[in-house]
């Protein structure tokens, strides 16, 4: 693990001794060939009326994405975005700013909602950054991906909300926003692992602990060796197949099967699931001690 600390200039923390800072932990993911950046932000200073916007930026060197980037939409499909361009209206006119001559809000206008990932392509190379929450994001320079991690504007920006963007904690200090990013730089031929990483971020393995299982009254049954996870994998619920079950009524539930593979990727595969085997596995798992 690598750890980097960035200090904000000319600011003091709540104790007045140390500058407010951003701490970045860099780790390699255990399951996928991606690098994880945990960015822990201290409170943004509230002194400057113009406010601050903190954007972690990720640069791929010598990378020409031809002013084109792709942002994820609802975790379902990648949408093509082109810098300073809309095919359905005149970008320069729509985003013109009469208060600032010669400036067409080309940062604001190029920010898009990013639900899980943003990616750039240069020939056969692909540069992807996944986030762990929905954020605004853009690619304002070639080879660069940036996300809006946190903003603080302690004054009205006269955009109509008539409210400061000034979120504070119970002590009155600006809130702190930690976020994680997963970076992949590879070739299209190697296949994308974006959706698999997204699945890991969204549905991370849950750890549960107990103090002493021996003290719990437990009678061994013939189903004890049954492995629910393996049974589901065997039925086809694995890799890019995501299953969600929602109870609807007594003796009735909804089963939603979703292949999260993206047609945007070269290696998007069709999957098959044996739904009867899935339901049988559920039944067996639910009746282990009966």
């Amino acid at each position, binding site marked *: 693990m690598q750890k980097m600390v960035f200090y904000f200039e000319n600011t003091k923390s709540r104790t007045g001794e140390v500058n407010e800072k951003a701490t970045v932990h860099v780790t390699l993911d255990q399951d996928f060939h991606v690098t994880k950046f945990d960015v822990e932000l201290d409170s943004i200073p509230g002194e400057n009326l113009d406010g601050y916007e903190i954007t972690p930026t990720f640069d791929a060197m010598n990378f020409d994405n031809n002013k084109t980037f792709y942002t994820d939409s609802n975790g379902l499909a990648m949408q093509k975005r082109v810098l300073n361009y809309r095919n359905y209206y005149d970008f320069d006119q729509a985003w013109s700013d009469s208060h600032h001559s010669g400036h067409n809000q080309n940062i604001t206008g190029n920010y898009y909602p990013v639900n899980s990932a943003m990616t750039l392509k240069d020939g056969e190379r692909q540069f992807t950054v996944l986030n762990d929450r929905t954020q605004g994001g853009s690619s304002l320079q070639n080879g660069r991906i940036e996300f809006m991690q946190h903003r603080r504007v302690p004054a009205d920006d006269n955009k109509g909300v008539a409210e400061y963007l000034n979120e504070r904690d119970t002590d009155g200090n600006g809130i702190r926003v930690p976020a994680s990013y997963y970076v992949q730089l590879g070739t299209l031929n190697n296949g994308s692992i974006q959706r698999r990483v997204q699945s890991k971020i969204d549905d991370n393995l849950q750890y549960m602990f107990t103090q002493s299982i021996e003290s719990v009254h437990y009678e061994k049954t013939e189903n004890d060796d049954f492995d629910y996870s393996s049974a589901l994998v065997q039925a086809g619920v694995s890799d890019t197949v995501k299953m969600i079950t929602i109870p609807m009524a007594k003796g009735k539930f909804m089963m939603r099967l*979703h292949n999260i593979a993206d047609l945007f990727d070269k290696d998007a595969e069709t999957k098959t699931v044996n739904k009867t085997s899935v339901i049988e596995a559920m039944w067996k798992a639910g009746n282990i001690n009966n």
Partner: protein
Amino acid sequence: MNARRLTWKTQDDDTLVKKDLDFSEGDIVTLEAQRIRVFVVEF
């Protein structure tokens, strides 16, 4: 009523593999990339 039903298609609908939506005959569910299939299970 049918005429007023909301319909939509995604930009890459034509690239999806079309399959018969009736699965009553078999156990196997085919899931193309980006495909979501929802079932109600009663027991």
